[in-house]
């Protein structure tokens, strides 16, 4: 084989292992070598020895598991028993969870090998990984630019071929936006599709785990192993229709609506051009294209930046330096211990969101802020319901811009929030959406977001697969040619 092993997609690797041409150990070693050399700071921790050991066990077993020992990167917000899990926060430095997240357990049972934990914005709050307590990740397409966030490490490691796929979490766009900025595929499933047990909570009515990969089929394969009810998460849903590997070549009769509000001002011209070209492919493939309005899109950011911080201010109350985390030395009483541990342990953005959320929930402001946001959320849900009476799926850019330079937005929180303007309404409505690379602008990848009604994952994957082939995106970062 002339092609290096780390070029393999998961699907091809599984085929080669199944055919006896490759061992899980060889494959894991090849990816571990690449992950070990990590100029993109995609990983916070790499468990090379543990991964090789598990790969050897899979090679020795009489029955080969479906994922055959293919390595995977896990966002550091997902708990992994005995393997340090920080959620990108200094307050959890050195924390070793005492149990493993259900979704990680499921991919391991299916035969994926956890190679390491990926970098992220602290507690998944951010759009660039610059809020990581351990330094930012870098975009493999241009190391002076961000990989997006919050699952920036999970996107960068896939784009850099350090693993064929990874798990991330998406609250307002944290899988889709970094996937777009790194030129890979990322999917946020329907809210409730994947168990949140072991996912360190940010905003519980929005958080959802999902896959990132280089192809739509790998994305589908990974998703198929993590969906379904988990007794440990009462909001996780029974999954009646299994996720199947997409093989559609056409989309005949498919009605696609492009979101008017996300195709105008506020979206870079190069991004619009690239997305329009991809939309033309839909017609080539037999689908129809109509403009659709989601009139409350303009209220998405404001709604999200009340609801998510409000939920985070409650969820992050658990970081009290009593059950886990480092207690500040020589703190006086209990309240002083809380205030110091949290004041010193949380980074700027996390404190900002806790403050915003606590404010929005506090006496005298609750109705005007949090209550109002929940009502606007209803309007956004209704916008989508109305749109899906006219069309089968919605298309838009995933991100209004291509990857931006490191440091460009760190001094202006609101400019950072704008990075998620296309993804947030979908999250507020709890709908499934996938981002696929659709071209380059200024030499950097552009993502196309496809959104469907709840539980339409299989259809979305089929459409994404057909479009992926029609677009034929085979560009890659300069250094990886």
């Amino acid at each position, binding site marked *: 084989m002339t092609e290096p092993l780390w070029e393999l997609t998961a699907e091809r690797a599984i085929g080669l292992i199944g055919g006896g041409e490759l061992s899980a150990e060889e494959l894991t070693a090849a990816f571990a070598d690449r992950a070990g050399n990590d100029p993109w700071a995609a990983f916070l921790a790499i468990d090379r020895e543990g991964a090789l050991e598990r790969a050897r066990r899979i090679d020795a077993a009489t029955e080969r598991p479906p994922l055959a020992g293919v390595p995977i990167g896990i966002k550091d917000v997902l708990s992994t028993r005995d393997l340090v899990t920080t959620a990108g926060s200094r307050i959890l430095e050195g924390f070793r969870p005492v149990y493993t997240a259900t979704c990680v357990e499921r991919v391991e049972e299916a035969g994926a090998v956890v190679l390491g934990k990926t970098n992220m914005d602290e507690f998944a709050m951010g759009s660039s990984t610059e809020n990581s307590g351990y330094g930012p990740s870098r975009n493999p397409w241009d190391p002076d630019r961000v990989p997006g966030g919050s699952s920036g490490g999970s996107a960068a490691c896939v784009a850099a071929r350090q693993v064929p796929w990874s798990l991330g979490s998406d609250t307002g766009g944290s899988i889709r936006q970094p996937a777009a900025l790194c030129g890979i595929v990322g999917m946020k499933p329907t809210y409730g599709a994947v168990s949140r047990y072991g996912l360190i909570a940010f905003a519980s009515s929005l958080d959802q785990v999902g896959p990132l990969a280089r192809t739509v089929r790998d994305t589908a394969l990974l998703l198929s192993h993590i969906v379904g009810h988990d007794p440990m998460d*009462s909001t996780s849903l029974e999954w009646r229709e299994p996720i199947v590997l997409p093989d559609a070549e056409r989309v005949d009769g498919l009605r696609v609506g492009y979101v008017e509000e996300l195709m105008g001002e506020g979206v870079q011209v190069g991004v619009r051009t690239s997305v329009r070209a991809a939309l033309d492919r839909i017609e080539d493939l037999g689908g129809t294209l109509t403009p659709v309005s989601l009139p409350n899109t303009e209220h998405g950011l404001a709604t999200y930046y009340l609801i998510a911080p409000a939920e985070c201010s409650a969820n992050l109350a658990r970081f009290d330096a009593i059950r886990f985390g480092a207690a500040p030395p020589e703190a006086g009483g209990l309240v002083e211990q809380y205030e110091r541990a949290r004041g010193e342990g949380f980074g700027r953005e996390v404190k900002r969101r806790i*403050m915003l959320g606590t404010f929005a929930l506090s006496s005298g402001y609750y109705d005007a802020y949090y209550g109002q946001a929940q009502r606007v959320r209803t309007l956004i849900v209704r916008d989508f319901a109305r749109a899906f009476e006219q069309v089968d799926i919605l298309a838009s850019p995933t991100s209004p811009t291509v990857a931006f330079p490191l440091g460009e937005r760190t001094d202006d929180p609101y400019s950072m929030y704008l990075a998620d303007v296309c993804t947030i309404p979908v999250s507020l409505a709890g709908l499934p959406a996938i981002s696929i690379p659709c071209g380059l602008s200024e030499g950097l990848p552009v993502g196309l977001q496809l959104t469907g009604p709840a539980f339409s994952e299989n259809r979305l994957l089929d459409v994404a697969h057909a479009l992926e082939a029609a677009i034929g995106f085979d560009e890659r970062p300069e250094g990886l040619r």
Partner: protein
Amino acid sequence: MAAVIERETVEHVARLARLRLGPEEVERMRQELSGILEHIELIQSLELDDVPPTTHVVALQNVLRDDTPRPSLPRELALREAPAVAHDGFEVRGWIETHA
């Protein structure tokens, strides 16, 4: 543009959230939160009295399970990551002051 948030409000909210902020942090937080709230306040002008709030996007019934015993985390494991342990439990600093 007038400040949306006063310094005292920041200090009050920080106390509620159990966050110690330094004096410079309070001022920066005041400016940043005011800036963010300016954008957010646009939704306050919407007339939504007849719109019900959405708290959860999936229509779920309350979920009850059978009340059957099952194993839980062993105590040593549950306490493993605690900074301080006493009498087989998490050690918590004094809350009520005692006067001898």
